[in-house]
């Protein structure tokens, strides 16, 4: 049986343990709203019947699968958020419903052609037609340029996001080393672990990330379904490489055979690439199709006519290739400033001028309701309507995913919080508990002290 002096040391260990517990509760309260903070739980183990508290340690709360879930939802949510945000300018460029849109511009062209049909010899009317055609060309160009500019901008933004992801990759690798060293020296390094989790979370938001924890507690981080970017203390940063054809950047992992990782990434970069390489490309294809159908139909009709001087009609528009038609569309320079060259008449050749003939102007007007678009299945306006419907559906879908993503992320965060977060009331209760126990331990020491005094007075 131990003596009273032994009992004193039991009391002292008890005091220390309760102090420690109170400190941990205090730290938890202080970090109740700290992002990425994991609650610390004091673990006190008994040393046996007469030895009191043996060991005191802190355990960092949390479950790795809940962390993984938050990372995954954060990556998905970021992807959806980025896409929804970046589709706004796409929608503005090709699916503008206001009177500043392409539809109005096309209607104005046909309105001017109707005036030409009513007054085919009127030079003011002819000039107005050229003006409207020029406006239309400007509108189509502008829409195409807006898409090109946004692609270029996304390319730059993506590069910046990849660079941020690389910073996180390096931070994680270096924290892996620090944490291993701290743990080896007996320090639980909970703050370093929080920092490492925050870095992984940031990486997940950038490109999506998965963590596997090895036996030593070190993080092995993979992105894009199995591509290792952190292995212990080794960081394997991503890089961007310029595509020789498009001039756009691809994400790659240097010195590996993975090739482009573009399609495998999630998070902000995934969203940026989705809009850059899928959504905008689709919008461009639709816009080019519309521009090409318009120019083909109008050129064909105009070539069949005769101008005010009896000459055969020329092409209204250049160029005559589908790819990039919207951006390259121009009014035939031969027409600029030459309203008499508009072929409103439809006379045989060689023809004397027939200024009152409006039949070819009528043929041009008739294109407004003719099935000349999308492989002769739609009118030009219907094809514009389809573009609006397509781009609108894309935007709507992105908005819904964005909302869902935010909801799921919130849910995942709540689940993690339940496991690793801080409830201030609970910590206050812990604090009170430690305070009471601390008081009791002190009282125990004073009782032993009294007992010792009694003994010493014998």
């Amino acid at each position: 049986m131990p003596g009273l002096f032994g009992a004193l040391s039991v009391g002292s260990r008890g005091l220390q343990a309760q102090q420690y517990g109170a400190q941990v509760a205090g730290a938890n309260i202080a970090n109740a709203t700290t992002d990425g903070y994991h609650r610390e739980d004091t673990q006190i183990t008994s040393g046996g019947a007469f030895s009191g508290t043996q060991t005191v340690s802190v355990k960092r709360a949390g479950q790795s699968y809940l962390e993984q879930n938050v990372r995954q939802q954060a990556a998905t949510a970021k992807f959806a958020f980025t896409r929804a945000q970046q589709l706004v300018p796409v929608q503005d460029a090709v699916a503008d419903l206001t009177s500043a849109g392409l539809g109005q511009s096309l209607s104005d062209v046909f309105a001017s052609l109707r005036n030409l049909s009513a007054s085919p010899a009127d030079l003011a009317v002819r000039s107005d037609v050229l003006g409207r055609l020029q406006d239309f060309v400007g509108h189509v160009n502008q829409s195409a340029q807006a898409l090109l500019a946004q692609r270029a901008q996304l390319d730059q933004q993506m590069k910046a996001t990849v660079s941020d992801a690389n910073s996180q990759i390096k931070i994680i690798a270096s924290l892996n080393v620090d944490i291993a060293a701290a743990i080896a020296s007996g320090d639980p390094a909970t703050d370093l672990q929080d920092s490492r989790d925050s870095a992984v979370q940031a990486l997940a938001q950038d490109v999506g990330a998965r963590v596997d924890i090895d036996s030593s507690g070190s993080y092995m981080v993979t992105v894009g379904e199995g591509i290792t970017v952190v292995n212990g203390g080794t960081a394997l940063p991503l890089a961007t490489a310029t595509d020789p054809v498009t001039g756009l950047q691809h994400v790659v992992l240097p010195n590996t055979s993975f090739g482009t990782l573009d399609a495998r990434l999630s998070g902000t970069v995934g969203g940026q690439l989705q809009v850059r390489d899928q959504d905008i490309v689709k919008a461009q294809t639709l816009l080019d199709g519309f521009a090409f159908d318009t120019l083909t139909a109008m050129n064909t009709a105009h070539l069949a006519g005769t101008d005010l001087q009896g000459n055969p009609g020329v092409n209204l528009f250049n160029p005559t290739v589908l790819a990039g038609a919207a951006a390259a569309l121009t009014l035939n320079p031969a027409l600029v400033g030459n309203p008499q060259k508009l072929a409103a008449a439809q006379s045989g050749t060689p023809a004397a001028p027939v200024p009152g003939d409006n039949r070819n102007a009528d043929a041009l007007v008739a294109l407004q309701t003719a099935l000349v678009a999308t492989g002769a299945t739609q009118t030009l306006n219907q094809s514009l309507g389809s573009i609006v419907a397509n781009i609108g559906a894309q935007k709507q879908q992105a908005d819904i995913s964005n909302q869902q993503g935010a909801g799921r992320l919130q849910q995942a965060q709540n689940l993690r919080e339940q496991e690793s977060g801080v409830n201030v009331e609970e910590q206050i209760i812990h604090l009170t508990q430690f305070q009471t126990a601390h008081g009791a331990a002190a009282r125990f020491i004073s009782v032993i002290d009294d007992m010792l005094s009694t003994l010493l007075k014998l």
Partner: protein
Amino acid sequence: MPMITDTMIYSNARNAVMHSQVRLSDATRRASTGLRVATAGDDPAAAEQTVLLDANLEQLRAMKAAGDRTSSTFENSTRDLQDVQTVLTRATELAVQGANGTYTAGDRTAIAAEVQSLHDTVLAIANKQDEMGQYVYSGFKTDTVPFTAAGVYSGDNNARRVEVAPNIQVNANLPGSQVFNVATGVNVLGVLQTLQAALAANNPAGAQASLNDLSTAVNQVATAQTVVGAQEALLNNAGVTRTTNETSLRNTRQAVIELDSPQAYSDLIEAEAAYQAAITESSRILKGLRDGLNI
């Protein structure tokens, strides 16, 4: 029992407030713009329909503009034909006088001079140019003087067809060959010239002979007047058709993308109420937290 942490309470409260704020701002935008669909993403199908409806409305507007252009030419033609009829009535009177045996050679010379001026009046009308210098009665060949003094026609028989309402087309011009020199009728200018020549030659029988042709000419111009009248009627009908179509298009458009105001305002009030509730509830919870800790 799952633990509720402070971060959860705060972030849930924040999300509730933010969510209701977004809803309120949406409802405010709708109520103030009156639009349910402002962008393509709001409702892609409705947006597509809007594009087509707007194009149709613009098309009607353009048809009206083209119709307005032609209506002034109709007014001019109507006046011109009226003037020609007046001339022909006077020429008939003069032919009757010239055929009268009691008139002297001098009288006929004087009458011949008046007939000459009547002829010139008709010639001026037949060779009339619009403000652009285009000949009105030469068919498509508006740069060609349509009639010689003898009434030989150099224009063509074409009329410009102009669409003034969906599937309604009018003839925007009257070729001279339908008024002044009709293949199956008479050459009005020629008739007047013949009459003038007979009178100048003091030939009452010749003047008498012209009366028949003059009567045919009057009928011929009357037919042209009927044609113009029919086109004007068509143009008026077109106006009615356009208005009917426009009303129906506007109603559809309204149903597709616009809000009915009572709905918009009740949505707005609801969103405001939800926002207030979120704020009140959040501050109550947060206050509860603080009070519990005696902060």
